[in-house]
């Protein structure tokens, strides 16, 4: 039985090939990325580039070279937010942004570099497109949208938002969507797309990155050796080297490649998550924080209890049933303020392609049992 329901924090289990490929690299291959020409380096470099290619395919872009690796989504978001030129000094954000976005933006706001404005949203947090159409978005440098909320699982209508945005670049935080949901960077006209490797993509921690459509519009955050243009003190301006200062996390990227190549088909279907959510909302005492339309519901949702706190529920679920879930604010106080669940937070249930119907039923019966005894 799989009682781990915290896949939005980091996914578990991983495809077994993640560990075996990492081990093969560490014990048999070795070698750095691109700095020399012998076999170990070639093989390592080939795998890193294969990972970039697979990511491009998965995320729907024909420009794999415009994908840069970072240590996580947070580093990728910081690179973008601190690397774009803020001419109009205004950034629009969704009301459900994670602190990976809110903290760097607050830094920029405090130093007077930018004003933040929250986009209009429906009560479930999804962007209100009708109201959006009445806003003059062109007065902003950037629009930032969390693709799938890490609190409610609400999926934002990215293709519609980029249409309204027109020339204004859109940064999509895909930390909770990459690997979990279909993504079409080119078709949807996304300018910046951020991913992390250790959640839906089922890779190891320490991996992530971003796609940038127009690299010339983005300054570097880190400068250093790339193994290319080594006669110069300046960073190369071509991709992918421009944002790849220093030796990349080769171990992690090889693990991520194995994860993408061996990503399992989900055992449970979307409707099973919807059914579970509906069942929980019918149990006395629980209230579910989720999308109002099942089409907008992703691979996680939250709950609160009338009398018990989120941390009590999480503690009891683990102590009595061995069920692992995350409680609290999930690094997203903006979202909790929006939903009225601040500062207590919620209990978050987040799923994996490895979960079975049995696992979901076990979780449901544990929640039923708890509400009678808490």
């Amino acid at each position: 039985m799989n009682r781990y329901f915290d896949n939005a924090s980091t996914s578990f289990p991983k495809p077994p090939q993640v560990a075996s490929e990492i081990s093969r690299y560490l014990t048999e291959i070795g070698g750095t990325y691109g700095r020399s020409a012998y076999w170990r380096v070639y093989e390592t470099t080939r795998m890193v580039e294969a990972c970039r290619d697979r990511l491009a395919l998965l995320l729907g872009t024909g420009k794999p070279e415009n994908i840069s690796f970072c240590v996580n989504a947070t580093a990728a978001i910081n690179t973008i937010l601190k690397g774009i030129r803020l001419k109009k000094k205004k950034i629009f954000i969704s009301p459900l942004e994670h602190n990976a976005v809110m903290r760097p933006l607050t830094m920029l706001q405090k130093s007077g570099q930018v004003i933040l404005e929250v986009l209009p949203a429906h009560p479930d947090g999804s962007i209100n497109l009708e109201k959006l159409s009445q806003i003059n978005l062109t007065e902003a440098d950037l629009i930032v949208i969390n693709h799938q909320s890490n609190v409610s699982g609400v999926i934002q209508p990215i293709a519609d938002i980029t249409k309204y945005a027109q020339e204004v670049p859109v940064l999509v935080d895909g930390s909770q969507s990459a690997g979990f949901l279909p993504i079409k960077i080119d078709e949807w006209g996304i300018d910046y797309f951020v991913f992390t490797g250790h959640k839906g993509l089922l890779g190891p921690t320490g991996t992530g990155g971003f796609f940038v459509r127009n690299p010339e519009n983005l300054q570097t955050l880190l400068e250093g050796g790339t193994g290319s243009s080594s006669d110069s003190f300046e960073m190369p301006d071509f991709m992918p080297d421009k944002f790849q200062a220093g030796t990349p996390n080769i171990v992690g990227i090889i693990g991520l490649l194995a994860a993408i190549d061996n990503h399992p088909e989900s055992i449970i279907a979307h409707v099973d998550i919807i059914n579970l959510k509906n069942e929980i909302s019918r149990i006395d005492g629980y209230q579910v924080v989720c999308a109002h339309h099942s089409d907008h519901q992703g691979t996680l949702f939250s709950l609160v209890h009338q009398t018990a706190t989120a941390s009590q529920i999480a503690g009891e679920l683990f102590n009595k049933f061995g069920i692992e879930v995350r409680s609290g604010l999930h690094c997203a106080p903006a979202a909790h303020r929006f939903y009225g669940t601040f500062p207590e937070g919620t209990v978050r249930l987040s799923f994996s392609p490895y979960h079975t119907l049995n696992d979901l039923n076990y979780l449901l019966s544990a929640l039923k049992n708890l509400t009678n005894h808490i």
Partner: protein
Amino acid sequence: MSTTIITFESVRMVIKADALLRQYQIFCKIIPVPGHISSECGMCIETNSDNHELIRHLLSKHHIQHNINVLQST
């Protein structure tokens, strides 16, 4: 005798070029960039093929920026 050295801006381009040229049975060897060639990255391709037209055509078609250098050996 001459050998052809193809150099590239980035190692990603080396990997792409190597895979592509091999598909067309063009013999490729990955070598460190010879010191007297000023190149942009640490590895390059050595080939004994003198069909530079085809190499140029294939690489350009796949948007792989490159430089072809011919080394004369005595």
